[in-house]
């Protein structure tokens, strides 16, 4: 619907935002905010544009024209329906940026621009929408991407969950980048960039009102910088994957199936925060299946394993990185873990989402 022309990002913080006059008449979203009339325009002019393209006063057009460097373009799309909308470590807004930026980064692309589609529920507090939008803008600035166009629709109360956000993203790839799951080769080493299960358990403990001695904070973060650091140290990274929904176990199962290789995981080597481990014990969940939003799995040639590990560890988002397994000839298509007792267990894909166990 609206477009926002190219503009250098300007730092604004959420605290500085106070509800501008036209929006102040509406403390919450009404159907008219999606109607394409004055109310829609006010939302764009006073909320979305100042957040995503501060200082930009160019005319709004039907589409944005982009100039992209290079020939190889990566594009992806993702939709975000998380509840609660605001959680320790982020909001649905920053999550929508990180999710799409990370999907681009996992193919080795340099993320450049995002689009943002909002589905708002009638009655959503304007202040909450502003917090989400500004958190989204902050996340985009930190990830070095621009939000270049967007759209807003409003659905009747009861027909949505406050806010749904869709982001699509475009990135560019160098000619020599070949990162794909089927490049996992026998002998390769599997690394994870840090502790697993943080995002999923942060959301779940917030949702279920569980409290622990140390709060569990979502790891939601943009991984493009970390990928760049890794690829500078190890140009021939074979596979990258961000283990979001379904967790590390699902991602590694997919890679094993795609490449027709076996993956052997060392359970003892998995970095898991004590609070996450405790919450999983309590709810009967396996951290291997819990979502991450700021971690990557990397599969690299064995001789590059230590270089990869130290390059991850020297980046702020990879300080807890670890080597967690290897690609093997045995059990092709399957993920097998060596347990703490030195035995082996097959880790299969869950059928649906993980359910808390009764016993």
């Amino acid at each position, binding site marked *: 619907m609206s477009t926002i022309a190219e503009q250098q990002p300007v730092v604004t913080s959420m605290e500085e935002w106070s509800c501008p006059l036209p929006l102040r008449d509406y403390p919450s979203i009404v159907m008219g905010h999606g109607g394409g009339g004055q109310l829609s325009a006010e939302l764009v002019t006073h909320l979305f544009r100042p957040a995503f393209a501060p200082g930009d006063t160019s005319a709004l057009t039907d589409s944005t024209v982009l100039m992209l460097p290079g020939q190889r373009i990566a594009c992806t799309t993702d939709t975000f329906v998380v509840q609660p909308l605001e959680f320790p470590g982020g909001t649905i807004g920053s999550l929508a940026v990180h999710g799409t930026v990370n*999907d681009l980064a996992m193919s080795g692309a340099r993320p450049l621009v995002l689009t943002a589609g909002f589905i708002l529920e009638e009655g959503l507090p304007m202040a909450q929408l502003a917090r989400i939008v500004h958190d989204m803008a902050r996340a985009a600035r930190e990830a070095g991407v621009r939000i270049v166009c967007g759209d807003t629709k409003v659905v009747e109360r009861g027909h949505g969950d406050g806010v749904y956000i869709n982001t699509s993203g475009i990135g560019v790839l160098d000619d020599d980048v070949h990162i794909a799951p089927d490049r996992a080769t026998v002998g390769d080493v599997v690394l994870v960039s840090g502790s697993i299960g943080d995002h999923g358990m942060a959301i779940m403990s917030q949702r*279920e009102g569980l409290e622990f001695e140390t709060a569990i904070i979502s790891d939601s973060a943009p991984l493009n910088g970390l990928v760049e650091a890794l690829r500078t140290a190890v140009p021939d990274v074979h596979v990258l994957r961000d283990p*979001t*929904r379904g967790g590390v176990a699902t991602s590694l199962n*997919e890679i094993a*199936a795609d490449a027709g290789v076996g993956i052997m995981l060392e359970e*003892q080597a998995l970095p898991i925060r*004590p609070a996450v*481990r*405790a919450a999983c*014990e309590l*709810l*009967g969940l*396996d951290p291997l299946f819990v979502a991450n939003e700021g971690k990557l799995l990397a599969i690299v040639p064995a001789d590059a394993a230590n270089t990869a590990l130290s390059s991850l560890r020297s980046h702020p988002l990879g300080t807890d990185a670890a080597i967690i397994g290897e690609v093997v000839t045995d059990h092709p*298509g*399957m993920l097998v873990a060596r*347990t*703490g*007792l*030195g*035995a*082996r*267990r*097959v880790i*299969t*894909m869950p*059928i*649906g989402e993980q*359910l*808390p*166990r*009764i*016993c």
Partner: protein
Amino acid sequence: MKYLTEFRDGEIAQRIATEIRQVTTQPWAIMEVCGGQTHSIMRNGIDQLLPPEIELIHGPGCPVCVTPLEVIDKALAIAATPGVIFCSFGDMLRVPGSDRDLFRVKSEGGDVRVVYSPLDAVSLARQHPNRQVVFFGIGFETTAPANAMAVHVAKREKLRNFSMLVSHVLVPPAIDAIMRSPVNRVQAFLAAGHVCSVMGFWQYPMLASTHQVPIVITGFEPLDVLEGIRRTIAQLERGQHTVENAYARVVTFDGNRPAQELLEQVFTVSDRAWRGIGIIPNSGWRLSEAYRDHDAEYRFDVTGIHTQESALCRSGDVLQGTIKPTSCSAFGAQCTPRTPLGATMVSSEGACAAYFNYGRTVQLQRAGSAR
């Protein structure tokens, strides 16, 4: 984590396993009663540390597995009733009834909610006085005290909109039934530690002497399970059949007396059907007469629902260790983890599901290509 990490030590586990190998001189079949123990065995690969002579038979101690199809169908009927808030432990949602599961009911508009405690369901009843709140009260003696407390609190507070669909099962009658089976192969039991933390183990000496079978109260962490097996094998090799408590940090002979008193007040022992096994006399609890107003079976008039288990399914034979899952003609064909016919394929730690996943005889359909 305190009380967990120290019971997961790999080196000590190897030491106990070595000791077990040293004392084992002949084949033995041991049943671990509880689904939690089966889960621990699978998850840690404990069976792989044992000598080939020791066979672990996974017992009927998974509440998800043994809840009969008929009870699931009753739950589905109640959950689909307009105005009802149906509360359940999470893993019951995917257990299939005759033609659907609770997830399906939810997608069709039923208000189905996952709770972590039956008392959460009581709170919902307080918050929604104009709606019927039903809790799906299943499980063994372990989950029973909280369920009993929920009904007790509801009655005390006169929360007439709270009721419970009860399908409780009891361990000692199941052990008795297994030992009386003409095809029984079980020679010793690892009794369920959490059940005994509530009930104590005063019921077990009689069982051990009647059936001349060693019973070792066993916990759930790897070292607990290995220690339970070690003590069981030691008894078997010496020809003994006593009750031992290998989970003394949690279990006492008497158990939790106040909980037992509440259970006696709220529940009455009754015959129960076990999925895949059939009716075992006096093997369950139903709500006692005094609490009948809170019995969902009567409130929603589902007593007329009667469902037959699949004739193809041989999970009863699998549960008793008389056949391996792969010997069943439905295995991997009509019966898979996505379309389970019986108890042992329903739960991820059921014997059939474990065989299915390990053998991968049928490739699971990958769900879509979107990440």
